[in-house]
């Protein structure tokens, strides 16, 4: 397993060195890493703790917008707009005369990155305190998070002078290149390890027990709400980090990156790969997004149809996802061969006693028909 992981890391990390940096695949690779972290963050809350959030893109989006705004403001300082103003062009189009005061701190990119990570986590904390403390979860949580991300989307569109509105934020210097890819790879590995420690330590067992039976966990002395809030914040932090890196890497960010459709997409990557596994979200994100890249060019309309069918297929036929199904199969297979072995041995022992040939094997000298 470790070897396989090292191989994957080596392939991703070594790719741009071999293939050069201007390849479209390089852009995709970095994007996919962000998507994978996003899916991992959903897996932590949904797969391991049983909270289905349809608004995880809110945290991804806020992280992305902070970074994109900061980069855009800095870009504008060196690249004046058509009328010579040194502030983002979309603000000028919307009639602003100067950079709004409340955005001035974002000139400092480290500050913006800190905001990109802290604000979503704090928001998740507030949200968690409000909902989980009153035992609102399950369907209610799904519906509320869905509405939350829809409203954020409308907010961004409405206040386009500050957010770029429909067009999003584009035209700023992004960090597309080998060093940043390696940085993202390192972050991905770090998050993977954090998730690994989190889910395989005792707290992971507690989270799973809350997922399985929150009532029992509560009557066993666990403050279920606190555990949910904690894991929700960790998940929001990961989403936000993924969003921040995404904005820096891709160089374009729009309201779609905070919307419910993107959130649900993340859920389905996790489901396809295998929820409650750590490799599942990575596999799911790379596979589904990779397929989309391969197929959407040829079959633009049919790709969406395929996605729809994928949702139904995963739920009805493969609820454990790819990794989960393989694990099941392996376990059954191993058990199967074990019992088979034991049976065969029994049979052999029996045969030896009675000096018979094993069943199914023709006796020597006899023709098998």
């Amino acid at each position, binding site marked *: 397993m470790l070897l396989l992981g090292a191989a994957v890391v080596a392939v991703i990390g070594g790719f741009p060195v071999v293939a050069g940096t201007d390849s479209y695949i390089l852009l995709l690779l970095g994007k996919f890493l962000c998507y994978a972290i996003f899916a991992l963050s959903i897996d932590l809350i949904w797969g391991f703790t049983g909270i289905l959030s349809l608004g995880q893109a809110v945290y991804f989006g806020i992280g992305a917008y902070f970074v994109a705004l900061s980069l855009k403001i800095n870009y504008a300082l060196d690249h004046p707009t058509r009328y010579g103003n040194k502030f983002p062009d979309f603000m000028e189009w919307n009639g602003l005369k100067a950079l709004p005061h409340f955005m001035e701190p974002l000139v400092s990119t480290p500050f913006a990155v800190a905001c990109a990570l802290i604000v979503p986590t704090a928001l998740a904390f507030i949200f968690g305190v409000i909902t989980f403390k009153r035992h609102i979860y399950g369907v209610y949580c799904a519906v509320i998070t869905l509405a939350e991300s829809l409203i954020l989307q409308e907010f961004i569109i409405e206040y386009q002078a500050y957010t770029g509105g429909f067009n999003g934020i584009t035209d700023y210097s992004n960090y597309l290149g080998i060093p940043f890819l390696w940085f993202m790879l390192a972050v991905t590995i770090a998050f993977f390890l954090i998730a690994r420690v989190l889910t395989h330590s005792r707290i992971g067992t507690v989270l799973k027990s809350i997922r399985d039976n929150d009532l029992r966990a509560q009557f066993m002395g666990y403050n279920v709400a606190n555990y949910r809030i904690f894991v929700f914040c960790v998940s929001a932090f990961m989403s936000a980090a993924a969003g921040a890196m995404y904005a820096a890497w891709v160089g374009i960010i729009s309201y779609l990156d905070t919307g419910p459709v993107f959130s649900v997409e993340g859920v389905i990557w996790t489901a396809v790969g295998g929820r409650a596994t750590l490799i599942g979200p990575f596999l799911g994100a790379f596979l589904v997004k990779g397929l989309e890249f391969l197929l959407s060019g040829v079959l633009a*309309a049919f790709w969406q149809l395929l996605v*729809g069918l994928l949702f*139904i297929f995963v*739920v009805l036929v493969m609820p454990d996802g790819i990794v989960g199904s393989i694990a099941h199969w392996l376990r059954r297979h191993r058990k199967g061969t074990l019992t088979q072995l034991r049976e065969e041995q029994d049979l052999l022992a029996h045969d030896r006693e009675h000096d018979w040939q094993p069943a199914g094997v023709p006796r020597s000298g006899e023709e098998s028909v």
Partner: protein
Amino acid sequence: MTQALISQILIGVSVTAILVISAIGLAVIFGVAGVINMAHGQFIMVGAYTAAVIGKMGGNTFVAIPVSFVVVALLGLAVERGVIRWIYDRPLETLLATWGVGIILEVVMKLIFGPELYYVGAPKVLAGSVHLVGRLPYPYYRLFLIVVAILMVAATFYLIFRTDFGLKVRAVRRNRAMSGCLGIDTAKIDMMIFMFGSGLAGIAGAVLAPIKSVSTTMGFRYAVDSYMTIVLGGVGNLWGVPTGGGLIGEGETLLAYKFNSVIGELLVFIFIVIAIRVFPRGIFGYQERR
């Protein structure tokens, strides 16, 4: 000022009516059958396209209502038999599967009808408007929507509380295993109630088509609003739909008048979250006995 306020409240009433119309089908499916149908918005959309086709063929909204009911009820039947019946006991996964159904419906409708918008006119009888307060015109069609909302709620109440079928539905809801033992075909009841709820979504599409251009993506917003209405009003109690719809409709309209529509939505959302904190099962949900 008062006049403006009153006219805003009246607009709020019609917004409420729209919410009730779009949410009542969902309330039946979610509250009674316990299914999370994320394709509800797309069901409304299919109902609206049906109305558009009827309109092209020369029919008006009154013709479209029964046709849309039947068309979307049959669609509901197909979805229930094909997808939902396998996963009744897994609500969150039903949510994902029906999300997939929604995507498929959008793609299929786009393939059939193309990307352009369709416009459906209101019936001639309902054209024009009335002056209820001051100079603000109040379209007849909005009054019609209020009537439709009341009728849909009344019909649903009648079906659930005054018919044999409704009795069975309530029995299944209370105690599924026992109802099965008493000879009620619970699977059939689930199927029927899903069809009925889908049909109501079809009617919603038919009557909402004239107030909004018909497009394949029109439904999603209705679905989210419907869910918020039900979550606020309380799952499993039909009174929750008008109550939740009223609070959201009036709240959003008045706040949009005071600030703007996005702020209004945000404030109403915050209100809903706080309300759920106070009534974890919705305003009417507390009557549910466990």
